[in-house]
């Protein structure tokens, strides 16, 4: 309601739903393009030609085969899954909180996941029963941390079966601070090698992508993505407030529960395998809302596609700009995402306030 006069002349919004459907097709093409770029680029030599040769069944050398199938392909799949998961989680959280600036990071899910990962890195070595989880220890702990913080948050902010969004936001800030403080204590007692691990995990990276990680995080992320379309009508209704949504026959509490669970699962899984990758969850839904409107029926699937494409492209950049070394992808998304975010805020302040 603020600063309406600042908003530029209203763009035509007629039939935004069919524009969003056309956008959907275009985003599939973008994802295919990003995937091709991702498979064809990297530190060592699988060329675009070799890639097409591989697709048409021609023989690849042993090195090419390993690079393509065991390094680049799992990395592509993991990047797409994580990107889709971050973008959809952001969109769902924003719909749930009726606030275009809400983000899983805001309600402490990411902080909780971070605490889990840091706990595993710093204390995990001394705990023998953790050994069986092997390379899964850190991702698994991050997932548990994200899940647990969401559950605590949920218990704090729900009374008599009703979740207060305001309480949840405030409790999320408190929980995030608490998780941050606990993480700080752990960082303080960490040794030098652990500090190095912590730093790299925190920056976010897809460099460690393996089929094992895809297998660990993939099913959770895919389940959360498949659940999202069923939330769309409920989130549209919630835009009118919980009372109006209730009057329109939307099972408000069920929608809220499902939204919270899917966000916790998807964010926990994504943070677990890729560390802290920022801005995808907040920039992608914004761009799509500005382009094709806030209707969640198309916003959620389009956010999945755009999030996947952008993260895959960011990963391509992170692998090529300082090749053969790699820039952590969290740095790329922040460098690209933060200015875009500020640009959106400046240009469309009127719209954001709406």
């Amino acid at each position: 309601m603020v600063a309406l006069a600042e908003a530029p002349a209203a763009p035509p919004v007629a039939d935004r739903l069919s524009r969003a459907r056309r956008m959907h097709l275009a985003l599939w093409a973008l994802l295919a393009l990003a995937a091709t770029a991702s498979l064809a680029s990297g530190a060592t030599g699988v060329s675009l030609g070799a890639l097409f040769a591989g697709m048409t069944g021609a023989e690849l050398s042993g090195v090419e085969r390993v690079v393509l199938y065991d390094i680049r392909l799992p990395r592509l799949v993991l990047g797409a899954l994580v990107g889709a998961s971050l973008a959809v989680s952001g969109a769902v959280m924003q719909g749930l909180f009726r606030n275009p600036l809400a983000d899983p990071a805001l309600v402490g899910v990411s902080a909780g996941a971070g605490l889990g990962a840091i706990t595993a890195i710093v204390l995990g070595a001394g705990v023998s029963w953790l050994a069986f989880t092997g390379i899964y220890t850190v991702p698994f702990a991050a997932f548990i941390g994200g899940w647990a913080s969401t559950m605590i948050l949920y218990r704090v902010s729900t009374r008599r079966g009703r979740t207060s969004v305001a309480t949840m936001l405030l409790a999320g800030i408190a929980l995030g601070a608490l998780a941050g403080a606990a993480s700080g204590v752990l960082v303080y007692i960490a040794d030098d090698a652990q500090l190095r691990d912590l730093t790299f995990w925190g920056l976010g990276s897809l460099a460690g992508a393996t089929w094992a990680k895809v297998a660990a995080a993939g099913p959770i992320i895919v389940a959360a993505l498949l659940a999202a379309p069923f939330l769309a009508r409920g989130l549209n209704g919630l835009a009118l407030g919980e009372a109006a949504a209730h009057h329109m026959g939307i099972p408000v509490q069920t929608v809220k529960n499902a939204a919270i669970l899917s966000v916790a699962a998807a964010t926990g899984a994504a943070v677990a395998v890729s560390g802290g990758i920022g801005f995808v969850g907040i920039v992608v839904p914004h761009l799509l809302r500005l382009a094709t409107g806030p209707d969640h029926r198309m916003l959620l699937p389009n956010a999945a596609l755009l999030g996947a494409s952008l993260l895959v492209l960011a990963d391509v950049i992170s692998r090529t700009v300082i090749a053969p070394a790699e820039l952590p992808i969290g740095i790329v998304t922040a460098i690209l995402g933060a200015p875009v975010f500020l640009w959106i805020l400046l240009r469309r302040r009127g719209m954001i306030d709406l």
Partner: protein
Amino acid sequence: MSLRAEGLRVRLGAAEVLHAVDFSADPGEVTAIVGPNGSGKTTLMRALTGELPHDGRVWLNGRDTAALRGWEMAALRAVLPQSTPLAFPFSVVEVVRMGQMSGLSAADPTLAARALSAVDLAGYENRFFQELSGGEQQRAQLARVLVQVWEPLGPDGPRWLLLDEPVASLDIGHQLGVMALVRDYARRGGGVVAVMHDLNLTAIGADKAVMMAQGQVLAAGPVPEVLTDAVLGEAYGCPLRVNAAPADGAVFVLPHSVGKVA
């Protein structure tokens, strides 16, 4: 086939704000809930719609609403809250269609436009909801509510409009227009319950009135029996005298002084 409630009690925090209220409204009529600020008008409305947890029972068309599912309720009655904040830049027609999707007329492609024209917002379809004025927003919300229960008589009984201050922020022309619209809805067989602030609009627009005071029903019945000097004086704590206009016998309310009741 009516809207009926018995023994409604609502607690907000530690205080009980609605004390064992009985309520009934019939289809074919406009029933106004009136009363001073804080008398429990909106609380009663929110208990009737199932929005607030309450003791006591509510029957809609003879069915206990506690046993009805959300989508069943949505097909029977639509609710206009006092204010409806909207998150995200939806267009007017997108907001109206959300109501349409919840009702039995979800497939009609021209309904949203017809409803907007019924509330005098024809041509506003592709405007952003948040760019409308307060009164226009309220009428757009009324259109959303109307399309949810567009046909006043369904296969299984009347449909209901439950409106919390539907004319509060409208200019006088649109106040009368909206009252005419809901009267027409009732005349065609639907039921209308409206929380009203304006006693004169109540007098000319409503058939029945329920006067609330301090969380209880002070008086209920046909408008001329509720809007009397005695009831109004007790409810509002100021001297009010009801007069009949000479033209067609409708009552109107005329404040006579600003002092307390003697």
